[in-house]
């Protein structure tokens, strides 16, 4: 044991774990070509890798592996109560991928998933079939099926690996009763920038104050680059949503978020924005507790929180103050029905 540290960690995606049933899918072949030097391990079921006990999320984050799998069921989930529904009654989301290339200190995925490895489900056609069924069976026929496809991941950030945003945009073009939201913290708009826009897809950017992005949103694009991407999408004619979510009670939050709004609307014409969403930090209690067990190195998980029902969030007074502040400032640019708020 000479204790030398000549070896290091593997980089991300050094290994591909591929379900036997996923081997022949075109997206699998594409990803294998993309990571031609990766070591390939054949597996029977993605859960045998993804759901191992005692995995360390943050240790894995520094060397994420890619797991390619076939999703067997549950291609459509009811919209979460923690998300803004923008008054769409047929509100659903799906999980094309588990986990995200970014590593935000506050991200609920750390508490939701047992692993930081990224699972890509390669059977996209089955999702399309389920979505068509959902459109057909939706309860409110006067509204479209509103489907968020980038909730438990950041699809656009991964578009160069697996072009799912592109595929869903093309799919939405064929489905008049579908409205898709693609949410991102990336600046990778260029990956879909050649596509003609459609009003059936909302491109949504989560915007955070630069000090928050720099300190807590590891790997995500800077505020400046996100705003550049927003501007490009607007110029190309896309419906764009801006998400100020989660709003964090960082020191001097009022001036920090005030500056964020000023910077945003100095760069972006609010009349060209479809709508905005606001929500303070909130999380399912179980996820929050698991996150705290996994990491004790970020102030964001060790502040003043309260539990309301099964949700952990800021105390009501603080929550109200933060929400009202942003709502008021956004009200200078947007009508009430353009502002989706989680309270």
């Amino acid at each position: 044991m000479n204790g030398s540290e000549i070896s290091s960690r593997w980089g991300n995606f050094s290994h591909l774990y591929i379900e036997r049933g996923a081997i022949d899918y075109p997206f699998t072949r594409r990803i294998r070509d993309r990571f031609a030097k990766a070591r390939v391990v054949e597996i029977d079921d993605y859960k045998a890798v993804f759901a191992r006990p005692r995995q360390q999320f943050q240790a894995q984050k520094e060397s994420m592996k890619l797991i390619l799998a076939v999703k067997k069921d549950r291609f459509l989930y009811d919209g979460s109560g923690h998300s803004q529904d923008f008054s769409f009654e047929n509100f659903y989301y799906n999980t094309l991928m588990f986990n995200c290339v970014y590593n935000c200190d506050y991200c609920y995925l750390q508490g939701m998933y047992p692993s930081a490895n990224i699972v890509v489900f390669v059977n996209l056609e089955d999702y399309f079939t389920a979505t068509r069924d959902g459109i057909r069976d939706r309860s409110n026929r006067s509204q479209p099926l509103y489907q968020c496809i980038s909730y438990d991941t950041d699809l656009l950030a991964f578009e160069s690996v697996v072009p799912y945003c592109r595929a869903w945009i093309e799919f939405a073009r064929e489905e008049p009763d579908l409205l898709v939201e693609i949410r991102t913290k990336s600046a990778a708009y260029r990956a879909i920038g050649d596509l003609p826009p459609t009003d059936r897809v909302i491109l949504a950017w989560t915007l955070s104050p630069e000090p928050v992005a720099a300190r807590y949103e590891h790997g995500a694009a800077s505020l400046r680059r996100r705003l550049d991407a927003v501007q490009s999408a607007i110029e190309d004619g896309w419906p764009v949503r801006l998400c100020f979510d989660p709003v964090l009670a960082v020191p001097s939050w009022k001036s920090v978020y005030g500056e964020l709004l000023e910077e945003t609307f100095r760069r972006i014409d609010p009349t060209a924005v479809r709508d905005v969403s606001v929500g303070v930090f909130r999380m399912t209690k179980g996820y929050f507790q698991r996150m705290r067990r996994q990491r004790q190195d970020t102030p964001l998980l060790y502040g003043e929180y309260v539990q309301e029902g099964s949700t952990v969030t800021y105390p009501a007074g603080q929550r109200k103050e933060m929400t009202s502040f942003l709502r008021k400032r956004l009200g200078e640019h947007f009508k009430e029905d353009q502002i989706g708020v989680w309270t």
Partner: protein
Amino acid sequence: MPILLAVALHPEARPVIERFRLKQDASFALPVFRRDEVWLAVTGTGRMKSAIATAYLVTQVEKGENAILFNLGIAGHTQKAGEGPVEVGDRFLVNKISEQGTGRSFYPDLLARTPLAESAVTTVERPLVRADADSVEPGLIDMEAAGFYQAGAAFLPPHRIGCVKVVSDHLETPRLDKNTVGELIAGALDDFEETIAAYRTVSDGGRDVLTDADVRIVERLRSRLRLTASRHRMLSDLVRAYKLHTGSDMPDLSKFTRVTIKTKQEGDAQFERIRDILSVG
């Protein structure tokens, strides 16, 4: 950080014992050799024996839950001799362990970059003969890895469990003599040592801001103020919040370790005072 090694046979263990200058520790119920932070158990052959000895080692060694755990041993290989790239003496880090008896598979986490090539291993109940080579996944064949891994995974995260195998035969050699086994293992020890060093560089992530000294003070407060388990957790989190938000060391709370508590109410009152001191609002 303890380094725990589970090795099936004495001839496999001998070169390791010599390399790391381990001495037998007779206080253990199994053959265990150690020096400083390195511990080696000779487990015996078969997955059950390997599982028992591995669990014993992890639980008996102080701070075993913080250990890096390795299985090192010889293995057969399904490839025919001379018909592919794998030769006797080649060594592999295992990336998949299949248990022939149950059909289940296990996957150590491969976070550290090591000098070793990788391979799957199938753990069998009885030595596999060449005629049956097609009945298992191509790769290594051994008799311990699945038991070793399952026992280790009951205590440790998968990135701190590794399995290194040295190819001893192509399922055609009826029995290997002890010297050959020892030479095969000895030839792999440079790579093995480098692999251990690589594993040591990988932390669990999310490092606790509470230092050992902080933990000791919190423990003293818990005992002195008769805190419940929930209050104890809360106190630890208050200290973490204080350190993370202020960037300062834990404030001096030593006066609270000298107070005398007679009732629960007195303990609660002291706890509230500490909470005020640690408040970062």
